[in-house]
């Protein structure tokens, strides 16, 4: 058990290092001089040279890379060029907001999406199935910012139930929750569409299996067959596909945070983009990769623990 977890964690470390390296090199081999684009075309030669020194771009690539790796191992992603604060400190400052948003969305999507998907699979090719399939397709096709804007328009502007600007820092728990609902539901509905669709597909794959027939042969009630046998097997792959979908969820979280003017990693990265804060941008991209790798690690381990067919030792 412990060895299984440890082994998976060991596998995640090189992936994280490699993805950080990809970001590092991407930022350096792509056309476009960060120093030039920070200062603008009218900048003097000296100013550009000074900026290149400040960014460390004047050093040989290998030296830069080794320095970068060393910093990375000490969890140092550099300092923001605008505020001067450590990137990691800025990230940790807003991380809770993004975490509460994504956790809310995942809970929303799973709690509603799994039952909808199961119900649809049991009513295959009848009205509830068509409705849920059509709904899922719309949810998956909807740009999250469009859904967010619609919810904003209806529930914050026309019927002012929730704040237009999602400010979690009101000091009260109620304020924090009120600020979470609309963005969380926006992100959650799109994830719900994905979960409902995956659960339906997984159930349809499990229901014709022979062990389902065995369960019926035992005289078990339809309830016991569906919940005791089919769902257990169908929900296992949901864990994995959720891990795979997480990258898209993070992308959707960025635009959701922007629509609702909500603090978080998304607002931080767009701020860094607009102020041409390359250190921050590079650091945040790495943070996003790490989050995805860690979530996949967790889903991998969870899958290993719940599916007896995976050799845990």
């Amino acid at each position, binding site marked *: 058990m412990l060895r299984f977890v440890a082994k998976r964690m060991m596998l995640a470390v090189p992936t994280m290092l490699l993805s950080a390296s990809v970001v590092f090199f991407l930022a350096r081999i792509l056309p476009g001089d960060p120093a030039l684009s920070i200062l603008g075309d009218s900048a003097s030669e000296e100013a550009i040279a000074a900026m290149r020194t400040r960014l460390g771009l004047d050093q040989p690539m290998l030296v830069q890379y080794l320095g970068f790796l060393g910093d990375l191992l000490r969890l140092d992603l550099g300092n923001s060029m605008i505020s001067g604060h450590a990137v990691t400190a800025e990230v940790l400052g807003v991380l809770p907001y993004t975490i509460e948003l994504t956790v809310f969305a995942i809970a929303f999507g799973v709690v509603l999406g799994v039952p909808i998907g199961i119900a649809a699979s049991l009513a295959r090719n009848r009205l509830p199935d068509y409705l849920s399939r059509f709904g899922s397709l719309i949810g998956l096709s909807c740009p999250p910012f469009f859904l967010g804007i619609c919810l904003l328009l209806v529930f914050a502007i026309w019927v002012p139930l929730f704040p237009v600007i999602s400010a979690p820092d009101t000091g009260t728990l109620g304020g924090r929750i009120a600020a979470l609902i609309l963005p969380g539901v926006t992100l959650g509905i799109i994830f719900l569409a994905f979960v409902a669709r995956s659960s339906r597909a997984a159930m349809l794959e499990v*229901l*014709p*299996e*022979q*062990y*389902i*027939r*065995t*369960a*019926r*042969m*035992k*005289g*078990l*009630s339809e309830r*016991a067959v569906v919940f*005791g*046998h089919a769902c*257990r*097997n169908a929900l*296992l792959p949901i864990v994995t596909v959720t891990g795979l979908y997480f990258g898209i969820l993070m992308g959707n979280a960025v635009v959701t945070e922007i629509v609702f003017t909500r603090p978080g990693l998304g607002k931080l990265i767009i701020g860094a983009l607009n102020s041409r804060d390359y250190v921050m941008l590079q650091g945040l991209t790495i943070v996003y990769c790490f989050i995805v790798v860690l979530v996949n690690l967790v889903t991998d381990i969870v899958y290993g623990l719940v*599916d*007896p*067919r995976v050799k845990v030792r």
Partner: protein
Amino acid sequence: MAAPADQPLLRVEGLGVAVRRRAGALPILDDVSFDLAADETLAIVGESGSGKSMLALAITRLLMPPENYAVSGRVEFQGTDLVALPAAAMREVRGRGMAVVFQEALNALNPVLTVGRQIEETVRRRDGGDAATARREAIRLLDEVGIPSPERRLGDYPHQLSGGMRQRVMIAIALACRPALVIADEPTTSLDVTIQSQVLALLRDVRRQNGMSMIFISHNLGAVAAIADRVAVLYAGHVMELATVDELFAAPRHPYTAALLAATPRVDRPEKLAAIGGAVPRFDELPPGCRFAPRCPRAMPACSAAVPTIRAPDGEPGRRVRCIAPLP
């Protein structure tokens, strides 16, 4: 709910099953009739594609999804017609009155539940009772089907067991229902030859000890000879011949049965094997008249005129044969 003495345990009469498709219903089983007495073993024999497994599923009403199949005729079990029975009442028949031993236990057992859980849930569904009783009963059943140190196997998952062990677990699940009728659907096909005979012997023994009736579905005539009292020969959805094992092996009346026997290796008659020419017809391309006619060495024009009725051959009231010119 025991059947009166003069009534068979199971009476299948004119059973027909058709698959509903967009292009119209496709008949698979047609006019299948047979009786099964208490404490008797009937074998259903046929090549793959003859409709054997569908027969087992039709009797137990496990054809899924039900709306895709049109079932006609009667399946009378302990005096009740199962074909028209409401779903809830049918669940009472399954898991109490009858149980099935499926082929390929690897697929027929749930891969993510322990063996113990799968037996215990069957026990508790039948008898109610608490977890500890169910656990004791599961251990007893595993012991009965010959699994060593059963209490340690309870926590195993199906993939941790060997093929023979898995099939024994499958039998234990069927026994947990304490059924009056057990249907064994090719229970040994996926097993090694040495294991096959062990499982076969086990089935025969548990049937006898528990006083159950059995329908034994197989394409293996050797196994049939070892285990069955009577045999129904199925070909392309029709029962071609129905007789006791001794009668059938001694003197087949239907040309198909004869061809089947000639294609089976036998210790007592070590002659050359004769393969049957051609293949079982597809159900969407059934020949008119006798379904075996295109492959039959004795076919004549009259054979293709109309489907022969199944009847007793001259002087043998206990047998049935579906042929206009049965073998002497």
